[in-house]
């Protein structure tokens, strides 16, 4: 039954995230844009270091999971709006507040997404409470995430990791890092595995933090692994190198993280559009859909265009999440929404600055900051170009050797 409205049950989640965004994030947005590299202390109320779970807690959670499973079986065949759809709604609202601060909420890292996607129940119990960042990119690899040089070698009961990783969001603030490393570079993608490394493990060293165009409230770290040892069962997924299954294991987290990044772009663009509309309204611009576009003013027409682009990007993102919630393969749709939302976010935030002229360009408003924040959302978790590559390959049935 086609319905593209939010279900009432998600309305509460939306309002909650909106409250957080408006009351906690927005007031300190400018402050931590200015104070790059300082941790936003105000966010500590949201988490603080979590303790490892007790055996009893783990038992309780297990029971809850069983219950959920039973419900799921009962709902077999019914359509679901689950974690993914809810995540899109929440992330969009939080990023309407501030995307950098959202990424600085303690305990919520991109590594956590990887852990919950591929960890065993035992690993979930061990690492579920972590604040885990994600370390993929290396100085000489950008979009080419298959071509990594960081190595992991099994030595007795431990993996020994060596290499350098850049662009690690929350790499300074996290307590664990999920690291991509190869077991054997000659075996290509299939040999790439991910490992959970405690940030305080010997040989895991913070090299530095990046100064950035935007997203300054969030730290972006370089970490070097120098004979860094972790227990044998800190590997996520199987240690076997299965050339047939290939890259799938580590890559599948993208199906969830790409819609999430799309949601970030939606949030930032929404912030820009709402403020711009408000500012312009005070100066007499009414974009009230009363006249067709070519009978409107240039500025109204542009507001309509931006709203349409925004809504299209939002619906594509909701679709990708909806498919994920309903166990449909969504790799192509995840890339589609990321591509669309990434470019939309960039276009909308830059245009809003232009439309508000001096008020848009000045630090008196946050419009200029959003136009800086938005740019990375068309880049990280796969650039616009990488998303198009993935969409095209799936659409046309081409391999990565055919369509490079």
């Amino acid at each position: 039954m086609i319905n593209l409205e939010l279900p009432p049950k998600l309305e509460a989640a939306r309002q909650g995230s909106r409250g957080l965004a408006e009351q906690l994030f927005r007031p300190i947005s400018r402050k931590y844009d200015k104070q790059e590299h300082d941790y936003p202390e105000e966010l500590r109320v949201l988490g603080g270091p979590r303790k490892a779970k007790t055996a009893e807690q783990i038992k309780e959670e297990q029971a809850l999971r069983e219950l959920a499973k039973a419900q799921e079986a009962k709902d077999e065949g019914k359509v679901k709006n689950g974690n993914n759809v809810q995540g899109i709604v929440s992330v969009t609202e939080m990023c309407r507040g501030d995307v950098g601060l959202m990424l600085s909420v303690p305990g919520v890292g991109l590594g956590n997404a990887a852990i919950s996607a591929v960890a065993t129940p035992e690993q979930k119990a061990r690492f579920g409470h972590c604040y885990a960042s994600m370390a993929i990119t290396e100085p000489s690899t950008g979009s080419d995430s298959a071509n990594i040089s960081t190595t992991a070698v099994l030595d007795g009961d431990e993996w020994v990791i060596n290499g350098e990783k850049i662009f690690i969001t929350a790499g300074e603030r996290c307590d664990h890092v999920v690291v991509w490393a190869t077991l054997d570079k000659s075996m290509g993608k299939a040999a790439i595995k991910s490992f959970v490394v405690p940030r305080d493990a010997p040989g895991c060293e913070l090299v530095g933090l990046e100064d950035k165009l935007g997203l300054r409230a969030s730290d972006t770290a370089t970490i070097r692994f120098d004979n860094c040892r972790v227990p044998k069962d800190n590997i996520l997924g199987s240690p076997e190198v299965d050339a047939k299954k290939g890259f799938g294991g580590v890559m599948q987290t993208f199906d969830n993280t790409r819609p999430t990044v799309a949601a970030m772009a939606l949030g930032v663009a929404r912030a820009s559009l709402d403020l711009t509309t408000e500012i312009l309204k005070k100066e007499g611009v009414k974009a009230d859909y009363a006249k067709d576009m070519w009978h409107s003013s240039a500025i109204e027409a542009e507001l309509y265009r931006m709203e349409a682009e925004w809504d299209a990007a939002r619906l594509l993102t909701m679709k990708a999440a909806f498919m994920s919630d309903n166990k449909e393969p969504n790799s192509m749709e995840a890339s589609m929404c990321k591509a669309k939302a990434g470019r939309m976010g960039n276009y909308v935030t830059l245009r809003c600055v232009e439309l508000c002229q001096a008020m848009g360009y000045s630090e008196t408003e946050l419009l200029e900051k959003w136009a800086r924040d938005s740019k990375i959302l068309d880049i990280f978790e796969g650039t616009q170009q990488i998303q198009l590559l993935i969409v095209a390959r799936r659409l046309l049935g081409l391999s990565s050797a055919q369509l490079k």
Partner: protein
Amino acid sequence: MSEQQEPLFDLTLTEDQQLMRETVSRFATSEMREKSRAADEAGEAPEGFYERALELGFNMVQIPEDLGGMGAERSPISNMLLAEDLAVGDMSLAIGALSALSFVNTVLDQGSEAQKKKWLPRFAEEDVHQATIAMMEPQARFDSTDLKTTAKKDGDGYVIDGVKAMVPVAASSEVMLVVATLDGEPAAFFVEAGASGLAIEKQDHMGLRPLELCTVKLEGVKVGADAKLGEKLDLVRMLDLGKIGISALAVGTCQAVLDYVKEYCNERVAFGEPITYRQSVAFMIADIAIELEGMRLLTYRAAARAEQGLDFHEHAYRAHLQAAEKGMKIGTDGVQLLGGHGFIREHMVELWYRNLRAIGILSGCVTV
């Protein structure tokens, strides 16, 4: 079910909708796409096309049972899907096939009981009865909020003057709804074929050639007191239901483009490899898929809101805006992807290019 599930964000079709789509898609392939080129060259629908389209039965579904129909609830979603699926076959023929339904929809939506009784039964019959809506006007700056066609009180009835443009299948319509200004407010009037002062002339256009678009001149056309649709025309609602319909046509046509270029470009070899091995080609196709899906979802959302009785004005506006802009981009990229071959009337892409240019122009002709 014991527990009523609360409404969810949901992209799945009902079983009825799925069955309908399958039927319509088969029809769109065999009766439309395969005859599309010949119809375009001939400038008319294939012999017997409207008869066969009528057999799909969609005209009568929502007509009340006591008027001979099936009495199903008004469903903008089903109407929208119908427009999308028919347009995959051929956009011109889709508009022609949906012209009577658009008339029916509008009468159901805004007509009085007496008007429903008078006008609807014939569309539940087994013979073809054509009808149309005359909304657009020939001036370059046509503005639906400022119609140049006027109606004046004239004794018990009304007298209508003006010129309407791009009226689908006007020459073969038994009745048309003419939208005009009455005392400064918009109103719609039933004008029957052959009315005195009514002149209908076929006019060729860039595309939509089998549709037989007409210019309709009304010089002192008199209609009765019962010819004014309903009490007070909600023109915005009528136009918005039209925007959904027209956006759905764009979605269907763009889907046809996507399917065609995927196959063509994968097969076409240049520089020793299929041209899809080149990023500029592959990314253009990926963008077609992305923008198409975006406009489809915007259209679905507007239709679903209309069906649920929610306000859908902004939503229809945005859907149509994207359909016009992205639809035309997809139309031109479709030709570009075939290179010189795209310019030849041997391939379908040039026809879609011409038809898609109409999306940003059409107003009110296919209402859901």
